[in-house]
């Protein structure tokens, strides 16, 4: 009897130790970079009341970080937590950004201007601009590999809570391409009804599979899922939200980027911006 008790205690201790090791190992696999917030030398932002806004965030193929924020737009580029350059603009306001090759794209829909800008990502200089690419009032937009997808109101109808949104795709010179069915231009099978519309975020493709993010509010978990082209679930990973820090205003899609085989999550911890790098191979390992 005594021997059984000892064996049971030893077994439970080993299991507990194993779980602790696994927990620590999994967090150690995820690198975090901290950069101070600030419009002089840090990550540019706009503050209102208790809310902090960082509008644009992206990562290039070398792993450099780009942020666009501030009431008067400031672009800041960092290598790790070292500033590479920063640039202020009068021509545009802070919005979401997208890096493709050596260019940085920016769509400025504030004040209903709807201007598309192309910047040189090496120094932030403006290379091209396409003014007022659509007349409709814009609700939101998202850069995808295939172009710019804009969620817009029908200007001919009165806007109320029953107004249906329309999605349209534009190329990166501002030319209208086509109407699309959803904000990600995903086929219906990849964005089925079981997903809560506009809450489950499609982050991007990895090895021909599809990566999504969602938030489990009751358990405070960030949920990452991997699905194949039939939308069959082939991988899941849940990480405590606390690990990432506090989200910026709106916890926007912009702050979750899939680049270089990693997911980059931008959050806030006190006066720092925190970038968490989740290698997809580690996140979905053995699945």
């Amino acid at each position, binding site marked *: 009897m005594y021997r059984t008790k000892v064996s049971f205690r030893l077994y439970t201790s080993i299991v507990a130790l194993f779980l602790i090791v696994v927990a620590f190992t999994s967090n150690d696999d995820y690198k975090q970079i901290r950069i101070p917030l600030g419009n002089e030398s840090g990550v540019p932002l706009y503050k209102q*009341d208790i809310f902090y806004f960082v509008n644009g965030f992206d990562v290039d193929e070398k792993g450099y970080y780009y942020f666009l924020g501030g009431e008067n737009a400031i672009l800041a580029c960092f290598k790790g937590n070292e500033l590479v350059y920063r640039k202020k603009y009068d021509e545009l306001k802070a919005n979401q950004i997208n890096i493709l090759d050596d260019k940085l794209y920016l769509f400025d829909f504030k*004040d*209903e201007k709807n201007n598309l800008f192309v910047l040189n990502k090496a120094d932030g200089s403006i290379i091209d601009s396409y003014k007022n690419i659509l007349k409709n009032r814009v609700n*939101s937009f998202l850069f995808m590999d295939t172009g710019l997808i804009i969620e817009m109101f029908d200007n001919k109808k009165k806007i109320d809570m029953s107004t249906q949104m329309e999605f349209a795709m534009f190329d990166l010179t501002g030319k209208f391409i086509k109407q699309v069915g959803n904000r990600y231009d995903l086929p219906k099978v990849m964005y089925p009804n079981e997903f809560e519309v*506009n*809450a489950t975020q499609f982050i991007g493709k990895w090895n021909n599979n599809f990566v999504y993010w969602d938030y489990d*509010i*009751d358990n405070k978990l960030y949920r990452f899922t991997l699905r194949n082209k039939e939308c069959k679930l082939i991988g899941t990973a849940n990480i405590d939200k606390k690990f990432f820090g506090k989200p910026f*205003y709106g916890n926007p899609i912009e702050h979750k980027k899939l680049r270089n085989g990693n997911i980059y999550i931008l959050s806030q911890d006190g006066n720092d911006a925190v970038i968490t790098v989740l290698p997809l191979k580690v996140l979905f390992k053995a699945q």
Partner: protein
Amino acid sequence: MNTSFYNSFISGTQKGDLFLCSNHHTAFYVGGNSLFYAHGDPGTPTGYTYDLRTYWIDELGYPKVYRQLNIRND
């Protein structure tokens, strides 16, 4: 997604309810994860956002809910 407490809150709401979030923010609820309000970022037009569960409730707690009642006098 089955989020029990959240789901029970949402099941008691109606499209058109006014949400007051921790005295900081007021928005119309339009169903699902969606709100309609004046955005806090300067220059951003009033419109829909899809961040009720993923941001607002999580950061500011469950809102006070106000509903217009249609009372007939005749």
